[in-house]
């Protein structure tokens, strides 16, 4: 039994550094994010080489999130071609990064740290690092601000922020500004809180059920239940991040009834150029 006053599991908020490449410190959650990207790149290479009109099973698997997200985005708004790629990319990236954090060996295989009981894992779930989630939230922020500025002009964007009765602008402008900026915080903190708390939950459940010998039969299926819970939450959080990105871009475009003639969908590379100009 662990002594009183000792911690049950060892968790750190900040990702630990594994090695340095020049001035860049490579942390274990960076390794996790790169691993997720490698999985996606392999899927892309497979799809580009082996795509056929009648899909086999692997191709159907790769097409599943694309068709799901395209169905949702196209069913919500008429002008979706400019940003559906971003929404699909965010969904698939966060899904793979979250699910990679549940594989055996992630968070458990690592180097021994200085203090007793401390382990520095080689790979850590990417979503458990605020840098990863903040980076994705920044991408979303830049994209929807650039859509608003591209469609309405910078003054038009500020006018949108000022609100409709113009005399209320001194009150509404700070409120709208803060609510737009807080989308950064909410997007990043939602994903980070879910994944980080999920890691702590899994570690705690495993530590509790293996603390004493008579509890060991429980250790066979209670952590499995929480693993399934984390699978579900990882997928839901990926979906929510992508759908919120879509919702913010739709709000930034600001389709109102009567302006449907603007809905000649721009090509995808225009959206990429706008992001590149605004970034």
């Amino acid at each position, binding site marked *: 039994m662990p002594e009183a006053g000792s911690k049950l599991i060892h968790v750190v908020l900040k990702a630990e550094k594994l090695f340095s490449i020049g001035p860049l410190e490579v942390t274990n959650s960076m390794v996790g994010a790169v691993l997720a990207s490698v999985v996606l790149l392999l899927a892309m290479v497979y799809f580009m080489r082996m795509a056929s009109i009648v899909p086999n099973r692997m191709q159907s698997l790769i097409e599943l999130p694309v068709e799901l997200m395209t169905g949702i985005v196209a069913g919500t708004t008429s002008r979706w071609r400019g940003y559906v790629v971003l929404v699909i990319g965010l969904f698939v990236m966060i899904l793979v990064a979250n699910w990679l954090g549940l594989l055996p060996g992630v968070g458990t295989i690592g180097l021994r740290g200085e203090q007793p009981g401390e382990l520095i894992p080689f790979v850590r779930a990417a979503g458990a690092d605020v840098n990863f989630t903040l980076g994705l939230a920044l991408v979303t922020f830049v994209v929807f601000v650039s859509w608003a500025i591209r469609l309405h002009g910078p003054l038009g964007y500020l006018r949108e922020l000022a609100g409709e009765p113009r005399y209320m602008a001194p009150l509404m402008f700070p409120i709208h500004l803060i609510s737009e900026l807080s989308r950064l915080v909410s997007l990043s903190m939602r994903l980070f809180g879910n994944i980080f708390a999920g890691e702590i939950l899994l570690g705690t459940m495993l530590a509790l059920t293996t603390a004493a010998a008579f509890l060991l039969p429980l250790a066979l299926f209670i952590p499995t239940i929480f693993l399934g819970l984390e699978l579900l939450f990882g997928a839901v959080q990926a979906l929510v991040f992508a*759908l919120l990105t879509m919702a913010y871009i739709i709000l930034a475009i600001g389709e109102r009834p009567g302006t449907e003639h603007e809905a000649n969908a721009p090509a995808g590379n225009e959206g990429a150029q706008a992001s590149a100009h605004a970034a």
Partner: protein
Amino acid sequence: MDSNLAAGLAMIGAIGPGIGLGIGFSKAMEAIGRNPEAAGTLFVPYILGLALTEAIGIYCLIIAIILIFAVA
């Protein structure tokens, strides 16, 4: 020790999202009960509303985690 107490107090804020999620889910169940074909239409806005409400509880959790791990 003080930071642990503060972390526990911070989690009192999770009462609000708990009630909100329950109310939202009950309304969704009512709507599906009245009109079972609306389940597909309801799904996406429901998940969106769930995540936005749950995020408030996650903010409380973030503050509690920061208090436990990053405050001496």
